[in-house]
C-alpha cells in the first residue's frame, strides 16, 4: 500500500498528515479522539535532522496528553550514512527518537508501528521497532542488510546464502522473517479498513514485551525467550 492509501483507509473522514523531506507528521480523527501519525516515507534515510524533528513531534503529543495513540508508519532506508551525521552524534538522535516513543507508550499513548515499505538497521530500530506493537502490510520489506552485502561481509557465495535464507529466518531479509522472529506481531489485511485493524491492535496491546515469546512460537528465534527467562530466574544480588 502507498502512504496515501494507508491514510485514506485509516482516516476516511480526512486528516492533517503531511509529508516533508520524507518525514510524516500529523493526525486524524480516530475512535472519537485522535490518532497521531509520524513516520518516514519514500525509502528516505533517517539522519540527525529527521530524527530530531520526529522526536519533537512525539514529545508534542505527550505534552498534550490525553492518551492519543501514535502510529509510526515506516517506509525508510537505513540510517543516513554520512560523515556529518556521525560527527553530530547520530546515535544520540536515533536513541532519543526511540526513547520519546518508549516514553509516550509509558505515559499512556499506545504506540503502534506500521511497516509498509522498506526499512533497515538504525532507522528501523529507532522508529517502528521502538513501538509497543509493530505490524506490517504485505509487500513490506524490512532488512538489516541485503543478501549481496551479507555475502560480501561473510565471504559466503550469494547462491548459498539465498538457499540458506529459504529455511533460516534468523538472518534473511524480508517481512516474513521479521514476523517469525517476533519483531512484527502481525500482517494486516490491506483490503479491510486499517482504522479497525489498528484499533484492534491497540485493544489487544500486550502488557510486557513478548516479542521473544512470539519468536519461539514462530520458530524465528528458537532460544531467546528461554535464555532471557533463565537469566531472570538465576540472577540474584550477592
Amino acid at each position, binding site marked *: 500500500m502507498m502512504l496515501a492509501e494507508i491514510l485514506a483507509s485509516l482516516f476516511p473522514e480526512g486528516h492533517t498528515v503531511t509529508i516533508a523531506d520524507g518525514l510524516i507528521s500529523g493526525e486524524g480523527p480516530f475512535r472519537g479522539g485522535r490518532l497521531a501519525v509520524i513516520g518516514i516515507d519514500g525509502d528516505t534515510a533517517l539522519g540527525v535532522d529527521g530524527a*530530531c524533528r520526529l*522526536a519533537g513531534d512525539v514529545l508534542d503529543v505527550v505534552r498534550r496528553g490525553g492518551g492519543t495513540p501514535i502510529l509510526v508508519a515506516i517506509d525508510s532506508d537505513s540510517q543516513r550514512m554520512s560523515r556529518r551525521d556521525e560527527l553530530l552524534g547520530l546515535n*544520540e538522535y536515533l*536513541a532519543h527518537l526511540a526513547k520519546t516513543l518508549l516514553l509516550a507508550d509509558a505515559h499512556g499513548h499506545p504506540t503502534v508501528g506500521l511497516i509498509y515499505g522498506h526499512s533497515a*538497521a538504525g532507522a528501523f530500530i529507532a522508529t517502528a521497532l521502538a513501538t509497543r506493537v509493530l505490524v506490517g502490510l504485505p509487500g513490506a520489506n524490512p532488512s538489516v542488510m541485503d543478501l549481496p552485502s551479507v555475502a560480501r561481509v561473510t565471504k559466503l557465495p550469494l547462491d548459498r546464502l539465498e538457499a540458506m535464507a529459504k529455511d533460516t529466518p534468523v538472518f534473511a531479509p524480508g517481512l516474513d522473517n521479521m514476523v517469525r522472529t517476533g519483531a512484527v506481531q502481525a500482517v494486516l489485511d490491506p483490503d479491510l479498513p486499517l482504522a479497525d485493524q489498528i484499533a484492534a491492535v491497540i485493544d489487544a496491546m500486550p502488557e510486557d514485551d513478548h516479542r521473544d515469546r512470539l519468536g519461539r512460537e514462530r520458530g524465528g528465534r528458537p532460544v531467546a525467550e528461554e*535464555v532471557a527467562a533463565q537469566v531472570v530466574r538465576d*540472577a540474584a544480588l550477592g
Partner: protein
Amino acid sequence: MNERIIDLAARGEGRGWATSWYEASARARIDGLLDAGSFREVIGPEQRRMSPHLPLFDLPRAFDDGMIVGSGRLDGSAVLVAAQEGRFMGGAFGEIHGAKLVGLLRAALKLKPAAVLILFDTGGVRLQEANAGETAIAEVMRAIMRVRAAGVPVIGLIGGRAGAYGGGGLIAGTCSRLVVSEGGRISVSGPEVIETNKGAEEFDSRDRALVWRTMGGKHRRLTGGADAYADDTIEAFRQAALDQIGRAPAFDLATLEAEQRRLEERLVRFGDCRDATEIWGQLGVNDPESVPALTTADFETLLVSLGETTHDAR
C-alpha cells in the same frame, strides 16, 4: 635521565601494570571493575549456551556467545553487569548474546540493584543472526527504559576495540550515563560502512585520525555524547562508573524535553561544521588541533574550562 621511568614505577610494579581496558577481555574487565571476587555469572560458560545459528555458517562458537552477564558488588553496592567480548564476532548482537542482556535488564526490574553496568564492545548486529540481533536490540532499549523508569541507573562503559557501533550505539544512547575513554568510539555507521556506501571522499576509513576525531571518546565527551572521560585503565573506569551512578538523570518527560532542546541546539550550532575541530573551536577550545594529543589530565582541565559539556539531558 628521564621522568617516564618514574611514571612506570608509579604505575605500580608491585601490583603489576595498570590493565588497559582497551586490551582486556570482557571477563578481565568485569573482574577488575567489580569488588574483588564478587562477580557471580549467570549462564556461565559451563552451560555451553552457544549460538544455534553459527554452525550453519561454519563459524566457531563461544561458550558465552560473547556476552557475559551476572551480578556483583561495586564498592559494596549490589549491581548487575553485562560485558560484551569485542573480539568474538566483533562483539555483535546475536540471538543468545542479545537475550542474555534482555534477561539481565528484566532481572533488574525485579532485583532493583544500585545500577546496571553495560560494558559495550560491539560492531552492532551479527549478520548471521541479523533479525534476532536487531530485535534483541529493540528489546534491550525498551527494557532499559523500564529499568530507568523504575529508578535504577543504567551506566554504559565504552572503551573497547569494537567501540559501540550500530545498534550498540543506539543502546548506548538510551543509557542514563556514559563513560568513555579515548579509544572508545560511539557511532551508528562504521567508517568502512560509510566508505563502502558513499565513497572514500565522504569518509576515508583508513584515515584513523579522522575516524577518532569524528567518533572517538574525546569528541563524544566534548559534545555531550558521553558524560565522563576515563583513562584507559580498568581502575579509571571503575572510579568513573562509581561517580556516575549517583548522577543518573530520571527517565521522564522533563529529561527528554531537555534532551530535545540539547540536540536541537547542537544542530543549530554545529550543523554546518565539516570537521570535529571546527566544532571544538566553536565550543571555545583555543587550539582544536591539539585535542587528540592531550593527556587525560589536560583534557579534564579543558573540559572544566569549557563548562558546558556536562548535562542531565539524556
